[in-house]
């Protein structure tokens, strides 16, 4: 009984001193060892996969293949970004793939069959997504059917709906210039650099201003060195990407020139910024995490849990609509298989591989993009290696299982470390 007195610990007020960069690094290492790995597996996986493919197939590292990765992975990544919201609540949306197919079909019907302008088509597709989300969310939150069952039923039903919309298996082609441009055209190189400069500049300004404001109020602020490291790494990675995408990648440059950042890239980045802002800086985002972490606590805190759930499904299905538009753009057509086959599993895989927990309460929109990159690299690299669909499916399935396993083990480890 000689240790009854608790260690006094640090006085709260002293925690306001700015931590050093070494402190931040140590805190991160501690978190990872405690089981909270965040995006680390995705980043490591990306490095390993890229190295392996680059050695095995030099074609993997060419500018044209690099650009391909973005357009190939865009639709799945967009759907995964929406799925993060549903996964954050510990729910699942198995219908997101075919929801994107339905929305793409709505787009195709309005554009090609009805001859309406592109913006009406886009609005119609996104409204379709919102309605789908309202329906799914309502069934889950208000009626109380498990999301797995609701969305599994929707998965089948939407497959039928796509068939109805495209007249039992015909293929509706899309000729609208604007829509087709989204996934097949590129920004002019100067615009790519301009976007890059503005993006990095704004990011740096936001980081510096926030740190300064917090320091002025005497709160713990990120040290300058950490901010510089963050801004620097963003500048380098994005700079290399823009540079490579601005290289000439046409086989015959005299005939047609092919340079620039694919238009989908800024589309994804804008959505990343918007959704990250919503999740991290608004009360709605905070409540989403709270419901995912402890729905009962959220309810007792006066949060309208049902409304949060419905909103998450609405966001998920609307992002699926955006993904459907991009998929339709890339294929320049919509057929009964748009959003079908492996799209959904790739999207769930992307979100989970990126570090979004299937148990809810943990995840970021950025995770979906990192995971989407892993999925795109696997798909692309396997095709370059000459493997057929069989191997591709097997590998992607294993990677998804591996990611979910890492998630589950991390959770166990966190529990053992007393972190949960």
């Amino acid at each position, binding site marked *: 009984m000689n*240790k*009854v*007195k*608790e260690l*006094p*610990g*640090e*006085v*709260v*007020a002293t*925690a*306001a001193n700015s931590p050093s960069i070494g402190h931040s690094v140590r805190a991160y290492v501690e978190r990872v060892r*405690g089981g909270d790995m965040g995006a680390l597996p995705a980043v490591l996986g990306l490095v390993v996969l890229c190295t392996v493919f680059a050695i095995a197939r030099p074609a993997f590292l060419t500018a044209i293949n690099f650009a391909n990765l973005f357009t190939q992975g865009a639709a799945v990544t967009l759907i995964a970004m929406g799925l993060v919201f549903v996964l954050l609540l510990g729910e699942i949306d198995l219908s997101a793939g075919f929801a994107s197919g339905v929305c793409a079909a709505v787009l195709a019907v309005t554009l090609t069959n009805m001859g309406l302008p592109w913006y009406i088509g886009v609005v119609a597709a996104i409204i379709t997504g919102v309605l789908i989300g309202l329906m799914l969310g309502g069934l889950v939150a208000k009626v109380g059917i498990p999301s797995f069952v609701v969305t599994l039923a929707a998965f089948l039903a939407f497959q039928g709906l796509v068939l109805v919309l495209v007249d039992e298996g015909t293929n509706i082609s899309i000729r609208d210039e604007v829509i087709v441009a989204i996934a097949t055209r590129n920004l002019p190189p100067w615009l790519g650099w301009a976007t890059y400069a503005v993006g990095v500049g704004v990011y740096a300004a936001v980081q510096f201003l926030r740190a300064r*404001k*917090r320091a002025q*109020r005497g*709160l*713990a602020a990120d040290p300058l060195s950490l901010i510089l490291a963050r801004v620097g790494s963003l500048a380098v990675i994005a700079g290399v990407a823009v540079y490579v995408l601005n290289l000439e990648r046409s086989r015959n440059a005299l005939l047609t020139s092919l340079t620039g950042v694919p238009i989908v890239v800024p589309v994804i980045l804008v959505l990343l910024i918007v959704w990250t802002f919503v999740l991290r*800086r*608004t*009360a709605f985002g*905070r*409540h989403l*995490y*709270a419901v*995912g*972490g*402890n729905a*009962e*606590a*959220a309810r*007792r*805190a*006066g*949060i309208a849990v049902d409304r949060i759930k419905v909103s998450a499904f609405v966001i998920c299905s609307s992002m699926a609509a955006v993904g459907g538009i991009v998929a339709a753009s890339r294929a320049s057509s919509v057929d009964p298989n748009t959003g079908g086959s492996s799209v959904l599993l790739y999207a769930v895989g992307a979100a989970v591989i990126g570090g979004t927990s299937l148990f809810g*309460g*943990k995840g970021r929109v950025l995770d979906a993009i990192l995971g989407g990159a892993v999925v795109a690299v696997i798909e692309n690299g396997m095709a370059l290696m000459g493997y057929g669909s069989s191997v591709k499916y097997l590998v992607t399935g294993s990677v998804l299982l591996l990611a979910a396993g890492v998630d589950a083990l991390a959770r166990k480890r*966190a529990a053992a470390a*007393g*972190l*949960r």
Partner: protein
Amino acid sequence: MTTPLLEVRGIDKSFGPVQVLHDVAFSAHAGEVTALVGDNGAGKSTLVKCVGGIYPIDSGDILFDGKPVQVHGPRDAGTLGIEIVYQDLALCDNLDIVQNMFLGRERRRGLVLDEASMEEMAQETLSGLSVRTVKSIRQQVSSLSGGQRQTVAIAKAVLWNSKVVILDEPTAALGVAQTAQVLELVRRLADKGLAVVLISHNMNDVFAVSDRIAALYLGRMAARVKTADVTHAQVVELITSGRSGDLGIMP
């Protein structure tokens, strides 16, 4: 005697055919710790949940500061200044201390959360309660010990200038040192002028901090006494048989 800050009279509550509370009267005074004791199933948690607006009452009155009030939900209770710290802590593990303390009542500027002022207020509240055991208020709750969590839950209740804080078994899952810390905090709350209601099974805790004791027995209020006027054994008797000498429910 001063008007109690919180008073309930003649509360009846049934769940279907089972009547859980029979004509219960109870009060809590500002600046005092009132212990609410009773065996499992005596109706302690039900009474608290009725006051907190989780359960609607069948009949009876709730008076706040002498005036009758209607409590239809947790929000109503919060508006009155009644905060309940539940047994199964209502904290989100995946959020940090500040986020938890402001959950559902975030301060914002326009659309954006005002993190800086929330952090300042949380820090103020914690240092106002002389809490020195948390390293950083940006720590995730999942990394806290049981006692620290309980501290955060109590601080959360205090943050809102609440007048009545009801603690449901705050020390049930804690070790010796942590229990002492939490009890100290409970005492400090009362010394700051709040009316504190402490639900507990633990007679040591009850006698350590409470000014008054109210004993429930099978849904009836057996006795409401001053802690100084009774002994350990009498309270145990009140809990187990509903009466002790000339105290309690007469047969």
